[in-house]
């Protein structure tokens, strides 16, 4: 899609107040309001990227496997019911005790755990694996699967869901032809509308920067209107939840939830959370990111309010980690791990896995949990059954994945 044509200064001046503060300005910005206000469909999809490779067996220990305790050694959590033990998921698997919200969702049939999951990628490089995870293709691409899916769906009457990137950058997952909105906590005072209009015009001759400025201004207006009065609670102010402080992820998740809940707002969002590359002292170092993830899901759910029941959250990471501890009580890069599907729309309360087993002969290359479920099957299942995108969009999202059938039954009928 080509970016909106730059508006003239006169049109911007006419809408000067709203230009900065609310939706009315979107009218002046060349039809952007249509994309925001008229996005049909009420289903929401949130993708949470855990960058750095979450140890799936730390988040979801397979304590029912006869080899689990011996292989995990010092990394094994006590079994459910014991002090500091895992939260039970029905007899074979547990959940890390820091994932209390996820466990409550599981008990309410709103959380699905998919275990022994991996993308098609096998060589244990974070950076290639993250690219593959986001681009949806084995060869590096400059666009992400989620964006391509939404772009491919647009011609159909059913589904131009607008997407939202949270933070100052746009993750590869959401890059591509479809327009993407962005949100990040504010801080500095903005220049006057008149100066912004001049800068917008000045940037029009630079395709990359021109589009960035136009989209950024449009989103600022929308976000300010939706989040009016709540900015202090979302990490914009001094102290408390700064961009890296504790609670920052929950604050961003809450803002994403409010924007997704707004009438005419985006319907798809991507969030990122790091801190998972636990090569050393894993048990201690996982507490903070696991807590941030769990608090973030709770904040997202609360902010979505009644729209939670129309929401699916997909939590994914680039690969799993070694089953055994390494020499520094951490884990090195592995293969299969865990994915979560959460939300009021999700047919949860189960661990879905073709469990590969943890016997020596069952490990991948003698060291990793073996992959039995293709991550793309989960993503395709959500695109098809939750966002109700056509097959064409699935094919655009994951080229060359014809052999990977969308996973069925992820969401309630």
């Amino acid at each position, binding site marked *: 899609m080509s970016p909106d044509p730059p508006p003239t200064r006169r049109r911007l001046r006419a809408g000067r107040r709203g230009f900065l503060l609310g939706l009315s300005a979107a009218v002046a910005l060349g039809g952007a309001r249509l994309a925001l206000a008229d996005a049909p469909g009420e289903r929401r999809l949130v993708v949470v990227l855990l*960058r*750095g490779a979450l140890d799936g067996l730390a988040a979801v220990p397979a304590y029912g496997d006869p080899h689990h305790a011996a292989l995990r050694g010092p990394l094994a959590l006590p079994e459910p019911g014991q002090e500091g033990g895992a939260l039970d998921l029905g007899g074979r698997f547990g959940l890390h005790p820091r994932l209390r919200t996820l466990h409550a969702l599981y008990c309410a049939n709103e959380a699905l755990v998919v275990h022994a999951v991996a993308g098609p990628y096998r*060589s*244990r*490089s*974070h*950076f*290639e694996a993250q690219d593959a995870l986001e681009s949806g293709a084995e060869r590096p691409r400059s666009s992400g699967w989620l964006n391509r899916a939404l772009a491919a769906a647009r011609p159909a009457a059913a589904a131009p869901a607008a997407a939202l990137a949270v*933070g*100052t*950058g*746009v993750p590869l997952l959401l*890059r591509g032809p479809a327009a993407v909105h*962005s*949100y*990040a906590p504010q*801080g*500095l*005072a*903005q*220049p*006057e509308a*008149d*100066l*912004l209009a*001049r*800068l917008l015009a*000045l*940037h029009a*001759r630079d395709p*990359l*920067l021109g*589009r*960035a*400025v*136009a*989209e*950024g*201004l449009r*989103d*600022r207006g929308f976000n300010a209107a939706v989040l009016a009065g709540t900015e202090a609670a979302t990490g914009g102010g001094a102290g408390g939840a700064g*961009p890296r402080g*504790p609670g920052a992820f929950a604050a961003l998740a809450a803002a994403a939830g409010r924007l997704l809940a707004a009438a005419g707002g985006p319907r798809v969002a991507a969030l990122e959370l*790091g801190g998972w*590359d636990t*090569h*050393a*002292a894993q048990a*201690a*170092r996982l*507490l*903070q990111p696991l807590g941030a993830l769990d608090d973030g899901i709770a904040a997202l759910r609360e902010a979505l309010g009644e729209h939670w029941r129309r929401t699916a959250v997909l939590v994914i990471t680039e690969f799993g980690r070694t089953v055994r501890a*390494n*020499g*520094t*009580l*951490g884990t*090195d*890069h592995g293969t299969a791990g865990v994915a979560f599907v959460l939300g009021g729309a999700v047919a949860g309360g189960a661990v879905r896995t073709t469990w590969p087993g943890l016997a020596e002969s069952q490990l991948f*290359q003698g060291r990793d949990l073996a992959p039995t479920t293709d991550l793309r099957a989960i993503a395709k299942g959500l695109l098809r059954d939750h966002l109700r995108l056509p097959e064409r969009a699935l094919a655009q999202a994951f080229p060359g994945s014809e052999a990977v059938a969308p996973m069925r039954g992820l969401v309630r009928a």
Partner: protein
Amino acid sequence: MPPAPRAPRLRGMEIQSVVASVRFGLGRRPDDPVPADPAAWLERQLAAPPAPLPAEGYAGIPAAFAAIRADRETARAAREAQARMAGSDGAARREGAEGMAAPEPPPGPAGAPPPAFERPRLIRAAGQAWLAHALATEAAFPVRLANFWLNHFTVSRRHPDAGAFLGDFLRTAIHPHVTGRFADMLLAVARHPAMLIYLDNAGSVGPNSRAGLRLGRGLNENLAREILELHTLGRAGGYAQADVTALARILTGWSVEGRREPLGFVFRAAAHEPGEKVLLGRRFAEGEEGGIAALRWLAEHPATHRHLATKLVRHFVADDPPPAAVDRVFATLRDTRGDLGAAARALIRLPQAWSPPLTKLRAPLDYTLAVLRALGMPPDLAAGIAFRDLPRLGQPLWAAPAPNGWADQAAEWAAPEGILRRIEWAHALAGRAARRVDARALAAAVLGPLAHPDTLREAGRAGSARDALTLVLASPEFQRR
């Protein structure tokens, strides 16, 4: 328009003079002389190893260890105080094993001042010293090269213990080698506590070594993998998991000594995996010498030279490196056995490096430095502003999210929110500087022929000096390099 306060000396300036300062430097300062021969001017900057950075400001290894110990003590005291406030028995919870990162500062009790930590203070001092150097120097090409190599060998202060060593890492492992041999830089990096701690090699133990057998400890393959993937061969280099493991075994025992003199790198023979190792079909002897030989061999591998050439051309010329340009730099690295000064001179001689329009988007660090240089602010003051504001602009100094460093392509930096923040930042600075800086004179002196007529016209029509300056500093051409 009032008459420009500075003489527009650049009116007849060759466009190449500006391109040299923008593409290979950090942008012009208004009073910088205009080099008559821009390529020769750049070559002169590479003629000798860069002058050593002063020890002052860049805390040394003993100071970094002292800061880590002090912060551990501070964190322990704060936890105990918190536990007493909470009415518990005051037993401090241990987080993390000895030798690992000290825990992040716990939240202080309500009303109490937060505990003062030493590591962030060291990092800030070193960061500001380096930024002030970058702002003050006329010869900015070596600074750009140092920033490039520091990003190539990323150590992020998101790991607070590793971050405490960053000043020394830059001063002793990166900066002295920017016109030297790549193998020497690689070795200096791989033996520096910053890297050994950041990528966990300090605690990696050969499973069959004396220490491994006694303690039941084993390998940590983090550093070995990133040396192969990021620092040397690159993902196209054709190594396998077995090679990652082999290099991890080769590097067992490469550790840090934080208690007894001499502090810093130590080879712990008791933790070194015995026996010969095979890396990519090549045999390396047991012992510290085997590791040195392996790193020197990797440093001069053709795949490494190809990887480095691609990254250099991507950084200095274009997001999508022209293959012919990569070939030229590759051939230089191959023929000189990894002479980084020769590679930098090869970059200057690339015809692709001199042809506007300039397509690279300045990352926030480069943009910030270029704006502050253009405004001619005192370097120490400007360094403080840059260090403070870079997080908002999306690139906190030396805090890359992951070991592959900051991205080097425009798509990573052109997100709407990121670009709007540049505009806001430029506007905020323009508010400070507008009374003494004329926008159009600045554009002429700093951008010269690169200034776009639209920008100059809009700056001339702007309603205030501040707005005019914002239009120049936030213009598209100011964001490109």
